[in-house]
């Protein structure tokens, strides 16, 4: 059994998973209009981290500062919290780091076209190296679906038996590079986004880092609050249609949902956490995929109205938030949603709903025609008082 045993989210909404989930439960959002940021000619609406706060936090908590970039500091801070909360010995040989990012340190290209850390693997080695881990880290770079792909890659490596733990980190930071690109696509909404809504006009970008620690569990006793998140199913399909536009038939997302439904108990699914970027095409595509999979009536939701699209972090933080929601017995509200705005129904709601079910599906779609999804199931497990992880049990 593969299970998620610890997690963290760092975002403008909080520095821990608990703070973030509490902010979401309170309907908070840090999507703001930013003018004159990154010297861009056009304003944009995004959820941005306080760079000084991150820098100060890192100076306070870090064991060393080996010239880490903002991206690397965020990955390290997020992983540090998750690792310490489960007492994992991250330097152990049976721990592998898997990093999800779309662009990593691309912001550095603005000042140094030859900055070595612009190679994602160089940056990943620095992050794993900070924790004393010497296994070559794995970097997944699959545009917007990277966060789910990283979990799938980690789960496969754990099932393959070579490693027992995976530290899966997702992070992206915004920059002139990324914002200008999305602006050139005319994909951005000038105001807070409205997923699935009739008046949606586009997406917002956001910054975050998230960490999940996955374990191939052979033990029978567990730490924590008496519940465990067990991996249930995963899938990845290409639309084979267009490199930057979602499929008009939702082909890849439909195939992902179909695969996952074949391996999960439909009656135990609390909700599908959708990509829900609030671009006209993405949300329409997801409605078609849900319809084709027979899931129009299944509760669905999206987190982009709180966080914006956090790129390589999205798959990680949205998975963690979905877990916390089920632990709290709720289906979170879709912030920004008001009235149906897709050809087929999406069972989203502007307010939160209750649930007593234990499984959720997280799906993502992105540039390159990629679609990926993953499902986890909550299991009640016996508690144990003391534990150690990594190396000796």
């Amino acid at each position, binding site marked *: 059994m593969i299970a998620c045993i610890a997690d963290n989210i760092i975002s403008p909404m909080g520095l821990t998973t608990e703070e973030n989930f509490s902010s979401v439960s309170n309907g908070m959002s840090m999507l703001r209009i930013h003018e004159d940021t990154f*010297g861009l*000619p056009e304003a944009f609406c995004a959820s941005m981290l306080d760079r000084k706060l991150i820098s100060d936090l890192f100076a306070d908590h870090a064991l060393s500062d080996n010239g880490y970039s903002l991206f690397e500091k965020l990955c390290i801070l997020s992983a540090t919290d998750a690792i310490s909360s489960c007492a994992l010995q991250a330097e152990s040989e049976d721990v592998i780091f898997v990093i999800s990012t*779309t*662009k990593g340190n*691309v912001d550095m*290209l*603005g000042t140094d*076209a030859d900055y070595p850390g*612009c*190679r*994602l*693997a*160089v940056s*990943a*080695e620095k992050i794993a190296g900070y924790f004393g881990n010497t296994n*070559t880290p*794995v*970097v*997944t*770079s*699959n*545009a917007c679906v990277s966060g789910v*792909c990283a979990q*799938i*890659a980690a*789960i*496969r*490596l754990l*099932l*393959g038996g*070579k490693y027992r733990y995976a530290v899966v980190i997702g992070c992206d930071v915004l920059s*002139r*590079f990324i914002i*200008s*690109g999305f*602006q*050139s*696509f005319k994909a951005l909404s000038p105001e807070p986004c409205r997923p699935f809504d009739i008046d949606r006009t586009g997406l917002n970008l956001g910054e975050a880092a998230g960490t999940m620690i996955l374990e191939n569990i052979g033990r029978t006793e567990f730490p924590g609050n008496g519940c465990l998140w067990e991996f249930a199913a*995963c*899938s*990845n*399909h*290409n*639309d*084979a*249609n*267009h*490199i*930057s536009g979602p499929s008009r038939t939702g*082909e*890849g997302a439909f*195939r992902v949902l179909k695969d996952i439904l074949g391996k999960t108990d439909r009656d135990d699914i609390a909700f599908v956490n959708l990509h829900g970027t609030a671009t006209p095409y993405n949300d329409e595509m997801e409605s078609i995929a849900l319809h084709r999979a027979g899931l129009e009536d299944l509760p669905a939701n999206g987190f982009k109205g709180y966080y914006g699209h956090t790129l390589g972090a999205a798959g990680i933080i949205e998975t963690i938030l979905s877990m916390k929601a089920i632990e709290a017995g709720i289906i979170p509200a879709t912030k920004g949603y008001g009235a149906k705005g897709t050809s087929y129904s999406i069972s989203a709601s502007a307010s939160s709903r209750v649930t007593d079910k234990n499984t959720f599906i997280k799906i993502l779609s992105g*540039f*390159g*025609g*990629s679609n990926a999804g993953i499902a986890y199931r909550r299991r009640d497990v016996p508690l144990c008082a003391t534990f150690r992880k990594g190396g000796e049990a």
Partner: protein
Amino acid sequence: MNTVSHVIITPEETLLDGKCIFRGSITGLYREFAGDYPKFFKMDSLCRLGFMAAELLLKNIPAPIRENAAIVLFNRNGSLITDRNYQKTISDDNYFPSPALFVYTLANIVTGEIAIRNKIYGESSFYILDEYNAAQIEDISASVFITSSPSLLLTGWVDYNDETDYLADMKLVTDKETDLR
């Protein structure tokens, strides 16, 4: 894993299953072995390289088998060449960001280009490694079969630095011996 076919493309030569079949540029290779896909000229160099490797590997594979193939590729430079080109278009004195260029600042676009051309609806994944590492590529490729059952796996290295420094070393593999006719 069982290797069906293997291609190596370098600036010097193109080898298919160990035999040299072409010497020349990637565009020359396209004109010789494809030639019917104008979208090729819109692609960045990384995509052109991966696209041509896939053309050579998949040409004899029937469509129904291709449909359920998986594409899992690796490299070192990501999309860094195109990233640098895009960066030049957003300087203060010369600001003209273009979506047609920005989309290629994602390394996984090459998997999408291959999927579109060959109508492949299976998995598409891209990994960045610090260096060419055959053992790690083999580990990650083999692990695809743990959670999925693709008909075929198109896997390997596709890295583009400049016109004198690029390498596609890609293979078509199956989980076990399979009849692909």
